Every structure is written in C-alpha cells, then in structure tokens.
C-alpha cells in the first residue's frame, strides 16, 4: 500500500441548502455508459478526450419530433440544419430518417451534395450566397430562400442566362413578441417590405415565388412565438395568393426549438422551462388550421437542429491534474477545453462522473487545458475528490460544438458514434499536424536551414 500523499489542510466552506438535516452529500451524478457501451472502455480503446454520439437517441428524437408534427398536420418535412452539426455520419442518420438538408453557405451546400443529397432536397438559406453557388443551386433545383433584393437581381440574371423559370422562396421577418427580433434576415412583413419583394419578383417575370421562410430566433422557450410567426406567415401567404399570381407551395417556419440544456442565467431546470416538441407542434399546426382558407395545405418545413441532436452528444474528458486554489476551491485541469465547447457561452452543462466516488463533495472548478485564463468549463460545481485519469462526461453537447469548435492550441479529438447495435464507429479521426499544416506554405527565404 502506497503512502497517502500529503496535502496541506484547508477549511472548506460547505454551502449547504440541500438538506436541513445538514449533511452536505449531494447525489453524485454518474453516467457509466453511452448507448450501452462502457465509457471507461471507450476511453481505454480510443483515448481521451472523445466526442460520443448515440445513433439510437438521434433516431428516436427525430421520430418523436416527426410524429408530433405529422399526426397534427398532413404534409410535413424536416430539413436537417447542417450548421448545427454537419459531420457526415450525423447528417446521414437524419437523411436516412427522411430529413432533407438545410444549408446556409456554398460550403454546406457542397457538403450535402457530396453526401449524395440531390439539389431538390436541399434548402439553401443565408444572407450571402455567392453567385456561382446560386447558379449551381438553380441548375440543381435547390429550394432557394432569398434574403435580399440583391439576391433577387442575381437570381433573375441566372434565370435569364439559363432561360428558365426559377422557383424561389423568400425569407420573412416579423414581430412575434420576442426579443431580440431577428430583423436582419429576409424581408419585413409589418413594414410592407416583404410584399414589395413579392411584387418585385412578379415584376421581374422570370422567378416564380412558391415558398415562404422565416426563422424567429434560437432556443425559443415560448411556443406562442411560433403560433404568432406561423399565423403571420399563413396570413401573408393568403395575401400573396390574392394579390399576385403566385401559388405558395410550402412554408418553412425555421427552427430554434430548445433542447434540454440549462441556459446560464435561467434559474429553473430545463424540465420545467423547456416546452415539449408537442407544445411547439400544437402551436404551429393550430396556427395553420386557424388561418388557412380551404384544404389546400402547403407543405410545412421545419429546420429543427439543436432540439434533435443536442442531447445525443457527449464529451468525455479526463482529469490530468488538480490543485487547490487560494480561495480553497478545488481546481481540476481536464484534457478538453472551451476550444471544443463553443456552447459553454450559454450553457451550464450537465457534468457527470463515470463511477461513484466516496468522500464529501467540495466546491470545484473545471478548467480546460488551454494556456488561456478563459478556459473554464465550470466554475462552481460540487465534486468528490478526483484524481488524474478520472473521467467526466459533459452533456448535452451534440449541437453546434463539432461545427464551431476551434483548432486552437490543441488538436481536435476523435468523434465516435455508438451504433444502434452497440458497436462503436469512429466518425471523425483526431487531428494531427498534417491536417493543420496541409494548407500552409513557407516561403523559400524563410526556411530554417
């Protein structure tokens, strides 16, 4: 038996409040496995840190969301929001489930095409679509959602060049009673700008308006905002169909449904504040039914991203060192930092151990491995004493992190997917030097030796 390490004694101020009886033993949150596969085994085999996605959970969440809408509205389709997570394997799962692609740049467009998605199954959004990519999208029959008057000009030029009528949709923005109002995208309904855009398109004579799109915000906690949004869109559709010769074939209400993540600054747990997918579906579909004339229902598109993927992603990280800070908090340095966790700006993550630990929980800080003062994953958490090699599981991290992560100071780690049958696949290899230096060029003069 090795000798116990000496450590200078400190007095820990235990913040109670958990129990009036006084014993500050908060329940340890423990996750031993993901999708039935032991996390310890994953780390032993694939190293640390690791992003882990669970296929079964993705599919279940998609089906649940699809059912919530399809049992309320007869004509609904999801567009997988690429920017939320555009790892091929992730996109492929959604496409297999029946989602089309929703992209916001030529890069994402190329990615979807590369994956085998046909142009007609791509929704092309975004405030800037380079001319060449618009040309390609038109040729391939993508659903193009116009954001600006300049884009109308570009598309008309393309239509004339290709000598064909181009179906297009416009993005709308409106007041839905939420703050901030995302008015920088698309055309505003209340000011009459949106109807101007419709008239402008009709006057051009080469584009055919067949869809309406809007996206009112992100992590929307109020389903009523969608009710207002959808109502205004359907009313706008009605007036477009009356005032112009266009027939609106689809409306795309965008995304922004919240996931069960705890926002910083919101006190209640997500189980209480985050509406269920049924609440969102109810708001959107009843708004259609209440505002539509007759029974010619436009197709309803949803660009749900975060809600579908966030909770299926985990980041497994290991303690590499620990120390006691001057204020007596315990500081742990782990091998994954904020370079991998873009969403730490908003979220207070769920941090779990991979096994029960004995001992009292003490106030701790979790710091990433970057040589930067801001690399703090969690600055106030009660943890039992951990040692090097102990693992923490951070979740939900499925949305936005593997797209907005940075190669900064460290390489980006492996990404795994635990498949439905319990097997494990690497869906993105960890980086090495060649990945980073491949694009670099060293002028002859600067070569060392």
């Amino acid at each position: 038996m090795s000798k116990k390490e000496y450590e200078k004694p400190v007095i820990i101020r235990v913040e109670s409040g958990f129990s009036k009886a006084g014993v500050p033993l908060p329940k340890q949150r423990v996750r031993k496995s993901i999708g039935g596969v032991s996390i310890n085994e994953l780390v032993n085999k694939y190293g640390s840190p690791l992003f882990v996605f669970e296929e079964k959970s993705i599919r279940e969440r998609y089906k649940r969301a699809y059912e919530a809408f399809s049992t309320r509205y007869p004509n609904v389709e999801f567009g997988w929001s690429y920017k939320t997570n555009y790892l091929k394997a992730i996109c492929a799962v959604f496409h297999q489930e029946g989602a089309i692609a929703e992209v916001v740049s030529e890069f994402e467009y190329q990615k979807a095409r590369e994956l085998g998605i046909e142009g007609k199954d791509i929704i092309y959004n975004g405030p800037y679509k380079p001319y060449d990519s618009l040309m390609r999208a038109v040729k391939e029959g993508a659903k193009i959602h116009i954001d600006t008057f300049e884009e109308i000009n570009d598309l008309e030029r393309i239509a004339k060049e290709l000598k064909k009528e181009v179906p297009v949709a416009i993005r709308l923005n409106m007041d839905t009673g939420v703050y901030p109002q995302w008015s920088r995208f698309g055309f505003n309904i209340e000011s009459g700008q949106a109807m101007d855009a419709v008239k402008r398109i009709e006057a051009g004579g080469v584009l055919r308006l067949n869809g309406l799109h809007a996206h009112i915000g992100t992590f929307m906690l109020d389903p009523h905002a969608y009710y207002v949004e959808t109502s205004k869109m359907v009313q706008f559709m009605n007036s477009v169909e009356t005032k112009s010769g266009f027939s609106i074939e689809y409306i795309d209400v965008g995304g922004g449904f919240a996931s069960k993540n705890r926002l910083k600054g919101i006190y209640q747990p997500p189980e209480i504040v985050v509406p269920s997918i049924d609440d969102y579906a109810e708001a959107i579909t009843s708004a259609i039914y209440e505002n539509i004339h007759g029974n010619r229902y436009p197709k309803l598109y949803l660009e749900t991203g975060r809600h579908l993927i966030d909770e299926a992603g985990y980041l497994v990280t290991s303690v590499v060192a620990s120390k006691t800070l001057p204020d007596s908090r315990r500081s742990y340095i782990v091998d994954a930092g904020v370079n991998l966790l873009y969403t730490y700006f908003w979220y207070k993550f769920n941090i779990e151990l991979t096994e029960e630990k004995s001992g009292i929980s003490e106030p701790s800080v979790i710091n990433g491995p970057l040589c930067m003062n801001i690399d703090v994953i969690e600055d106030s958490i009660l943890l039992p004493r951990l040692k090097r090699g102990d693992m923490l599981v951070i979740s939900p991290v499925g949305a936005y992190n593997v797209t907005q992560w940075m190669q900064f100071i460290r390489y980006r780690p492996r990404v795994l997917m635990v498949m439905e049958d319990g097997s494990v696949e690497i869906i993105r290899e960890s980086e090495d030097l060649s990945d980073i230096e491949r694009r670099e060029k060293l002028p002859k003069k600067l070569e060392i030796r």
Partner: protein
Amino acid sequence: MKIVSAKKELKRYLNSTLSAYAEVLFIQNRAIGAVILAVTFVDLGIGLGALIGIVSALAFAAFVRMDPQFLESGFYIYNPLLVGMSVGFLFKISLLTIFLAIVASILAFLITIVMNSLLSSYGVPILSLPFATVSSVLYLASLNYSNLFYESLNNHAFLTVGEMCLPLWISSFFKSMGTIFFLPSVWVGAIFFSLLLLHSRIAAVLALGGYYFGVWIHSLLSGSYVNSLLNPYAFNYILVAAALGGIFLVPGIRSYLLSALGVAVSVVLVDATAIFWTLYKIPVFTLPFNLSVITFLFVLRLLKYREFAYVIKRTPENTLSYYLLSLFRFKSHESAVFLPFSGKWSVYQGFDDVWTHQGRWRYAYDFVIRDENGSSYAFDGSRLEDYYAYKKPVLSPVSGYVVETLSSLPDNPIGEVDNINNWGNYVIIYSTAGFYVEVSHLSQNSLKVKKGDFVEAGQIIGLCGNSGYSPEPHIHIQVQEGPHLGSKTMPFNFVAYTQKEEIKFYDRPEKGESISSFSSDKSLDSRLSFVLDSVYEFEVFKDMAKIDSFSLEVKMDRFSGRFFFEDERGNRLFFAKEYGVFYFYDYVGDDESYLKRIFMAVPRIALSGSRRVVWRDFLTPRIVHSGLKRALYMFLASFCYKPFLYGGVWEKEGNLIRGEIRGDKIFKSETVIDEVNGFASIRLDEILIRRKK
C-alpha cells in the same frame, strides 16, 4: 358570323339524323347511321318516310326553339323516325301521306318528350314505346281513312326477292333483322347484321342468341318450328336480348341470363298482344320489346342492381370496360371517404368487430396512434394526456355540409365510460357525394365547425377526445344512411392512404394495421392542373427516330362539365384530380390514338411529395389492346372478366413514374412530370411521346 353558326346548327341536325338511324339498333356511330339511311332507300316509301319523320321532328324542335344540343345524340328523334317509316311502310308516297307522316312524327316527338320526362326520374329508358304507341294510334285511325287506303297501300313484294336461296332458319333471322326497319328482306337484314357485328360482337351474338332462343321457346309452346320462324314479330326477341344483355345492363353472365329471361317474357307478350292487336288490324310493332325491357329495367334500377349500366358507352364492350374500371379502380359501388386524421394511425376496430362495431353499426372504423412497441400511450397510461391520440386534430373525411354536432360532453377519465351518450361529441356531415358520415368521441368543446357550415375534405373539424362510450381516446368514423345519430351504417372505403411505401386507393385496412394519411403536394398539384383551352404539342419517337407528332387541347364537356384532353382527330381522354390524386378514367375514340397510350402509361398519379411511393391499378383490354385482339378479349371478358383485368404497379420517384402492366405480356411505361406544367415525356415500350416546348 351568322353563316358560321347556321352551318354549325345544320351540322348538329345532320348529326342527330344519322345518330337516330343507328340508335334504332342501339349503335352509337354516325357512319353506321349513314349506311342504314342509305339502305332504307331500298324502298323509296320507307326511306322517304323515315326522313320526313326526322325532318318534321327537327323542324318542330327548331320552331319551339329547343336547344339543338339536346337533339344531337339522336335519342329524341329515333321515335319520329320509326313512325315516319311506319307511314311509309303502309302507304304509297303522296301529298296526303306525307302530311300524315308529318303529323304522326311530331306526335311521336311530343310523346317522346313526355314519356322521357316521366320515366327518366326513375332512371329508366323509354326505348321505342312512343313509336309503338303512336304507330298503333295511326294504324287505328287509318282504318277510317279509306281515301288513303285504296289509292296508296304500299306493296313490298320485291323485298322477298332471293330469300329462297337460303334455308329458312337462316333467312328468317335476317328477315327479322330487316323488319326492325320495316324492311323484311334477307339482304337488308344481312347488311344490318353485318353492321351490328362490325360495331359490337357482344351485341351481334346477343341478337343471334336472343332470336333463336325466342324462336325455340315459341316453337315449344306453339308446336310448330316453322311457324315460329315465320313469326313477323320475332324481331322483338333480338331487341330484347341486345337491350338487356349488353346495352342497359353491363355485359356478363348474369346479364345474359336476364336477357334470356327477358326474351322468354317477350315471347309470351308477343303472342298475347298479337291476338289482341290483330283484332284491330294493328301490327304489334315493338310493344312486347318495350314492355318487357322497361319492366325489367324499372325493377333492377329500383334495386340498385350492381350491373345496371349507369353509364352507357358506345358499345357493350366499352360499357363493360368502363364498368370494370369503375368497380376495381374506384370501388364505385360503395362510398369513399378521406382519412379523418393526419400522420400514422392504427386500426383499433374495423368492420364487424368484436366490441361495438356490430349489427346496424358494423360498418365503422376506430383509430388510435401506436408507438413502435404497439402501445397507444406513454408512461403508465393512467391519464388522458398519456395517450398519443388525445387532442390530435380530426380532419373532415368528406367535402359537404355539417348537419349535426355535439361538443358539450366531457372527456371521460381513463377507466370510465359514458354509456348513456354512447357517441360522445360528434359531427355528422352530408357529403356532396350523397351520403352521411359521422365522426365521434371528439374532445369537449374542441369543435371547429357548426351546423350548416360547409367543410372541405381535410379541413380540421375538432380534436380527438374520449367522450361517450370510449375506453381510450380514439377517432370513430362511419358512413351512414341518414342524418340522425345512430342511423344505419353502410360499407365504405378510404379514398387513399399509405401503408409502408404503398399508396392504397379505395381500400380498407385490416384490424391492427398502421396506415398513414395521404396528402397532396401543392407543387405537384399545381403542375398537374390543366387550364381549359391550353394546347400541348407532342412529338412521337420510335427507336430514337421521330415518327409522328400531335397536339392535345384541354376541353370541357358541355353537359357534364367533365374535363378531357382532345387530339386533332377528336379522340377524348377524360381526367380528374381530387383528394391529391390525378387520374384518367375514360377514353372515347379510336384505337390508334396516342391518348389511349397515355391512359395506359399512367392511369393514375398519386400527387405525393414523398421520395418514393408505389401504387397498384387496373386496366382492361379496351385500353391496352387494339384491333381484333381488343375485340376478342373484350368479348371473352363478358363471360369471365378475371383474366382480362390487367393489374399493374406504378412507382413514383420525384418526377419520374415507372409502370409495369401485366396484360397478355408485360408492358413497361415511364412518365416524367414536367418541372412547370403537364407531362414532359411518356414512354410506353418502344414508343416515346415527348413534349415539344
């Protein structure tokens, strides 16, 4: 302008004249009418008499400003035609007899209209009853007109020329054929029979069979075979057999048996009337035929007999084809409704089911939502909110008027049922197709419609609930006879639904099966909208070489408001679009038209936006084949349709529809829907029809 319209009207009058001649033999073909017209001039008196009959009826119609469109079919004037002939048959042509013919045929025309407006409300034809009546009246009256008699009684001896060179049993048949037009000549009869044979094998065989069957029965009763053959009124058997066996009933074994019965009845009627009528020196004419056929049809129509030819086509073969297509493609004998929900639901109870779908209420469906494990609820299922179906939108299954609603009953908690108000909250809608549909167990105060509202199929009417006798939230739907709650139910089908990847049309799911609602894609829907008067040009290729070109025009039928494509030669392909399905349902025209190929290549298109869907459909030899093969197969199909009901499978992926039709060989088709409007191309085996833009 005036000259053009006068020409157009003259053409209509000419058309009705020719149609009227053919109509006597139940033929709808103006060319055949023209041949018959020519043949009637074998006897100048009869030929002229017929023409005088028609012209006077038409002139009278014009005088009273009757719309010439009504006359075009020949239906209103074949009775005046026959009356004119009967005058020409009895008397020589003179000013007096012409006058008589005019008066008599106008009387026949008037009686036609009177009888038709009386009988048409029963859906029964008047046949040549006006003729039989008026001619009898005329012959009776002429007994007094001695002036006419002695000078101008017509002599028809020459008609019997050459009949000796055929055996009696053959010559008598042809003679009877001729007698239908007052020309009891073997040769004239032979021509008429050939025309009938050319027009329809079924009708010709019925004429032959009916005649000999009638003669056989008559000879059994009377004891003399020769006398039976010589009976001048034996032509009635021919008309009865053709009318019942192939014209007013759909050709088939049952109809053939009925027509044999009808012939037997007419034998008795012929002999009975002959005795009575002869007393007054009146020929029996077509009275036995009319009495027997009208009586049969009256009763069958009252009984809503399934094989009653509600739609009579140009030939019995075409009537049969139309009937088979309606029956198997659209289940036309039962009503059809849309699914009352959106998304994927599961059948909880079907027709004749174990719990409540019994007795008067056995034709009903109950639906719930089930998850992958087959459970209809999440958690422990103790609360209404746990049930997936609870508060889901309920959509109108038909377009029609709301006749009754109730929405005040509470949703029972799980474990309790309300067995006083069994139906719970409900909506009863009177469909524009003429039946009532009831949807019940709706959620309290969830109704979006009220009594008197017009709803369109697919519109929301309320939310699924647990009111009434309902163990768990579900949707109950039934089609019923009356507008009242608890009215007797009737069997029905669902217009379209999806089961896995297959779209089923006019079908019923089994208990426990999961089905999804079917909804049309607005884009496809508008691309397959055809605006009246638009013209589509096509080029036809065979083995990459252009062989032909043609154009289609979108038109609307003047009477029925039905839409069709018409090519340059006047062939018509009827189409419709409803409930998210585009389909062709009728073709009128010649064998060689490309329109027929289009019908065959894509009889129906599900306007589904899904990536890939599959559906089944049926065709008949009438659509698939041409020439002798079509004639033979359709004739055989009247005895047993099964081998001639050609099934096919169609698969749609995006704009491309691939079809495979199992006829006497496998036909393959490939149709591409245009990006903007209409069809881009249609390929059927080696023929490619491509749109020219």
